[in-house]
């Protein structure tokens, strides 16, 4: 099919002229519309906030752009919302930078922007400012998104590894390893994609529910790249305490377990985009668990382990048969194995 400016992104879409104006005013801005974005001033003006401000940014590349359970747009909104959420912040506003490769079908762009709008609505955060650039075709996936977000810190709440004590419990908010395996299965056409779905979801509501319910939340983190293993390895480094995770308690869907075995990957090291790892005091653990489960995104929450005194500090997995092994953060790109 011939690529024209009415069906595909062309370099002129990024030139700042009429085509740029048309692209934005017809395809992007109406989809994201809100009172802060609509004036289209050079910067968005936001209302004053009481207390401290939380500010974060992240860039998103994923191949394929659309995968079971989500797409790069949903990922870009949820990822940044979640970076604010795990600090205990209430997300206030997001920015979106789109870098499009020429040749990207406009239909695909529409779909991604629709998906960003839906995710922003779900998270109740407006996209208040943005930018679009077009670059020459480079054989990439066709689109890169950078989002930034500001949030209002929760008064008196500053979770961190420094608060963790021996005896604290470790909770994961649901089924793990879904996002990474869904993307990998889609990318490699494994034929098992239909059973796997990314869990990408905005988590500010879930974190708020948990923090409202109990006041001894020590630490919250979203186990994205590096998975739960990466989070507990960081925890051990930062808190100088040990962590024991019960393998039998880890919530893993059968299809995910199967796909991980097929690929020789450890579900503990696979990325999540809609889960949190929480460390909470022993006495508040059940309350935090109940709070998680009361939220639609935390129904399968489980206490998976506890913080222990350990010298040297180690993250250990207690296996199904009662054995022990050390949990380490994975190195770089996880590669599928032979046979």
């Amino acid at each position, binding site marked *: 099919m011939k690529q024209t400016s009415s069906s595909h992104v062309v370099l002129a879409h990024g030139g700042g002229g009429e085509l740029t104006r048309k692209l934005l005013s017809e395809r992007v801005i109406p989809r994201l519309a809100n009172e802060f974005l609509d004036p289209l001033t050079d910067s968005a003006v936001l209302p004053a906030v009481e207390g401290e401000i939380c500010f974060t940014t992240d860039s998103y590349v994923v191949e394929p752009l659309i995968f079971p359970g989500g797409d790069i747009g949903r990922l870009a909104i949820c990822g940044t919302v979640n970076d604010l959420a795990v600090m205990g912040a209430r997300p206030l506003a997001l920015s979106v930078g789109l870098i499009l490769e020429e040749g990207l079908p406009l239909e695909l762009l529409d779909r991604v922007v629709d998906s960003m709008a839906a995710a922003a609505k779900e998270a109740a955060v407006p996209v208040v400012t943005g930018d679009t650039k077009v670059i020459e075709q480079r054989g990439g996936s066709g689109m890169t998104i950078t989002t930034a977000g500001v949030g209002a810190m929760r008064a008196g709440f500053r979770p961190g590894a420094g608060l963790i004590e021996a005896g604290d419990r470790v909770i994961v908010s649901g089924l793990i390893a879904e996002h990474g395996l869904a993307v990998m299965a889609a990318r*490699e056409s*494994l034929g098992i994609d239909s059973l796997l779905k990314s869990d990408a979801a905005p988590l500010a509501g879930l974190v708020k529910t948990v923090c409202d319910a109990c006041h001894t939340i020590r630490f919250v983190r979203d186990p994205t790249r590096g998975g739960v293993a990466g989070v507990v390895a960081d925890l051990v480094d930062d808190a100088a305490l040990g962590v024991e995770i019960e393998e039998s308690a880890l919530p893993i869907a059968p299809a995910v377990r199967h796909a991980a075995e097929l*690929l*020789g990957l*450890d579900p503990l090291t696979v990325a999540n985009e809609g889960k949190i790892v929480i460390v909470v005091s022993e006495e508040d653990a059940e309350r935090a668990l109940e709070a998680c489960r009361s939220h639609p995104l935390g129904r399968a929450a489980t206490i998976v382990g506890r913080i222990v005194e350990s010298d040297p500090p*180690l993250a*250990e*997995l*207690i*296996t*199904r*048969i*009662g*054995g*022990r*092994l*050390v949990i*380490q953060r994975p*190195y*770089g790109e996880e*590669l*599928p*194995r*032979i*046979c």
Partner: protein
Amino acid sequence: MAVGKNLREDPQVLIQAINEICLELDTIRLMEVCGTHTVSLFRSGVRSLLPANLRLVSGPGCPVCVTSQGYIDAAIDATRLDNVTLCTYGDMLRVPGRAGSLESRRAEGAAIEICYSIRDALRYAGANKDRQVIFLSVGFETTAPAAAQAVLEAEQKDLQNFTILSGHKLVMPALGALLASGDMPIDGFLLPGHVSVIIGSDAYADLVDVHAKCCAVAGFEPLQMLSAIRALAAQLRHGTPRLENVYGVAVSGAGNRHALSSLDRVFDEADTVWRAMGTIPLSGLELKDEFGRFDARKRFGLTIGDDYDPPGCRCGEVIQGRLDPPDCALFGAECTHEQPIGPCMVSGEGTCAAWYRYGPAKTQGGRP
């Protein structure tokens, strides 16, 4: 039926039984031949539950680890050929050769695709007829039948742009060579389920009949591995080496005739160089002459050069069960998962990678 009973048994009961039997034994050394066993024994926690006088040592069963440096160098040479896309399993990517690794070649822009199986490479060749596709076909009897099938399919479709660089190896000749060296203090073998499905448990007869070693074939579930280890310990206590098969559900005496006949149809057994073990007679698979046009060596004039050790690297001893990784001076110091020097640290099935990944010796049983 014995297998059903074993599978239903409680891991705690098996662990207790192994510990009780080992009380009556001196130090025993069992070799797990297969890299998947090496990893599963760590990953399941089995190693951490074994008595201190039961030593598990790794054998020459990690496909990447036994591949000679000469093969790695030939693969890297292939990436410099015009119009060639190299297809490979992910594990091979980071093995260092004389001139960098495939990973560094990929970063330099070489066309290298990661595949999950040879079928991916075949598909890639079918969809990219303007490229010459070379598949790095390594592995034991587990991956070789799929390679044979792929070559037959390429012939049937008359694919002009698909070749393999065969590095396939056979398990039994390597075990024979290990034992023939005469200085291997191995009391028994934990034999690999996957390979055994193909070659059948009868293939191991010489280990018992000629070398008087205890043998047990097992799958990769903790209960199976524990059952096999208990069986081996019991054989040693009674002094009655024999071949037990706790994977009878999948492994027959004669193996998979269909897979074996496709191997016979496409490959010849050939003398092959193993990492650090030298040339072992009839221990590898080369394409028969009639399939020569699918042989990357013949089509592109690739030569598999000498094997050599990276300086200081003792992977050769590790894959022969002569050395535990922490006893190599490079382990965890110069050689890490982030910056591997030898293949045993690179591969997901590698012994050094398993030791490095699953933690310090203090949490792992079976070490003095």
